[in-house]
Every structure is written in structure tokens, then in C-alpha cells.
């Protein structure tokens, strides 16, 4: 047992050198807490209704947490999800009433690759069939889709900055794909 409880954890892209040049910057953002949120949007407590983006394909910042719309009853929170009063904690399985907001810890399920720079949109377009034009997929938008042959959650952050959430087992494949596609930028 070690003093640092995190000393021997390894992120899925620990071996990924990243990409760094004038047009493109790609690197992993490891170990962010992620929580899957399931709830019936029609029966949300006000405290939750204020935090969850209800418009499809959007994400919203709530305190230190970014909450992404995944589906009509599903969201993903990135960052520490401070519990709403009278709601269960993210990492417990206790049940509070019948209209639970169900929280599932999925921190290790996906890692995050940050792709930024003026070449970011063109790079992603090589593997993503979505229209990434800033007027269509600008900051505040997110989508579950395919990038190359991996399922991803794509998040448009600041101008020319995207986060790609990719499942841990696919992360190396996707990183290799990005590195290969980046040679043109």
C-alpha cells in the first residue's frame, strides 16, 4: 500500500505522446470524474432541472461541472458532481424515493482527448460525419457519434477546442488514428 492513493493508477492514453504544432494540439486530459445521470426529465426536482441541459445536443456548465445531454433521459457530468440535497451520492447505490435520479460512476469508462487549434475541425472531419461548422457545432454543443471507427462523445468547448470522450479500450486506437490523420495539419 502506498501513501498516495493515486500513485499506481494509469490513464488509458498514458503512453500517447500527443500532437503539438501551430495548427493542432492534441493531448489527454486524464482522470476527470464522470458520472452518468439518468432521470425522467418530466419529474425532475427543481435543483436538478436547473443543472441539466434539456436541449438535445447541448452541454451546460454548472459550478465546476460540465453536464452533457446524451439523450432524453440521460446526461453525463464531467467533474465532481456535488450532490443535490435529498439525492443519493454518486457513488452509492441507495435509493431515495421512486423518482430517483440515478447516478452511476463512469469515471474510468472513458478518457478525454483534447483536440484544439485551427486545424481541429478539419482533423475531426476526417473521421466524423457530423457537420462541424461553427454555426452548427459551436461552443456549447455536444454529440454522441462516431469518430473514425470508435464511438465517441464530442464536445465543442471554446473556439476551435473540442473534447473527445472515448471508451478506455478504444482510446489507443483513436489516438493512433488522430496521430495518423494529423500529418496533414
Amino acid at each position, binding site marked *: 500500500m502506498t501513501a498516495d492513493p493515486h500513485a499506481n493508477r494509469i490513464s488509458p492514453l498514458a503512453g500517447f505522446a500527443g500532437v503539438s504544432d501551430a495548427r493542432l494540439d492534441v493531448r489527454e486530459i486524464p482522470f476527470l470524474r464522470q458520472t452518468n445521470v439518468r432521470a425522467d426529465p418530466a419529474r425532475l426536482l427543481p435543483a436538478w432541472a436547473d443543472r441539466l441541459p434539456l436541449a438535445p445536443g447541448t452541454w451546460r456548465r454548472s459550478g465546476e461541472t460540465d453536464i452533457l445531454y*446524451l439523450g432524453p433521459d440521460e446526461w453525463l457530468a464531467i467533474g465532481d458532481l456535488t450532490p443535490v440535497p435529498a439525492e443519493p451520492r454518486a457513488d452509492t447505490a441507495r435509493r431515495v424515493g421512486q423518482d430517483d435520479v440515478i447516478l452511476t460512476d463512469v469515471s474510468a469508462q472513458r478518457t478525454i482527448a483534447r483536440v484544439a487549434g485551427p486545424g481541429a475541425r478539419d482533423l475531426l472531419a476526417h473521421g466524423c460525419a457530423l457537420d462541424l461548422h461553427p454555426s452548427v457545432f459551436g461552443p456549447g454543443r455536444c454529440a454522441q457519434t462516431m469518430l473514425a471507427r470508435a464511438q465517441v462523445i464530442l464536445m465543442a468547448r471554446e473556439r476551435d477546442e473540442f473534447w473527445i470522450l472515448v471508451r478506455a479500450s478504444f482510446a489507443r486506437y483513436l489516438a493512433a488514428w488522430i496521430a495518423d490523420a494529423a500529418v496533414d495539419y
Partner: protein
Amino acid sequence: MLLIPCPWCGPRDEAEFHYGGQAHVAYPADPAALTDEEWARYLFFRDNPMGPFSERWNHTSGCRRWFTVTRDTTTNAITPETSR
């Protein structure tokens, strides 16, 4: 590559979806009450029209929701059936 309107995510490439076959084939309320032939009809028999066809799709690479559209099998024109 069809462009299929997911009621939640908007139009997406066909490659993001799994096909679910004919829509409105409900699981029988009491399977035990059915004859073998009726049960086989539920399991195995589907329409194959030339023209409008109600069919199900699952947005597997996106929101994972099932929904129904009408697709004209002669032109591939698609109109949404499931409303949000």
C-alpha cells in the same frame, strides 16, 4: 448513405443506426394463449411492401433511443413517425 432523422439527435448518417425491422409488431399480451402458428406469425412473418413502410431504427452510436419512421422503399424518402 441514408440520412435518418433521430427525433433526439437530428439527422444522422445511416451508419450510426441499427435497423429494427417492421414497426408496430407488438409483443403478444399473452404468448401462452397463442397457437404455434400465431406465435410463429409474430416471430417470423413481416411485411415487405413496395412503397411506404413503417420501420424501427435504433440510434446505436448516438442516444441509443428507438424510434419509428415511414420509409418509402421505392424512393427511400423518410418521414418521422415517432414524435419527441
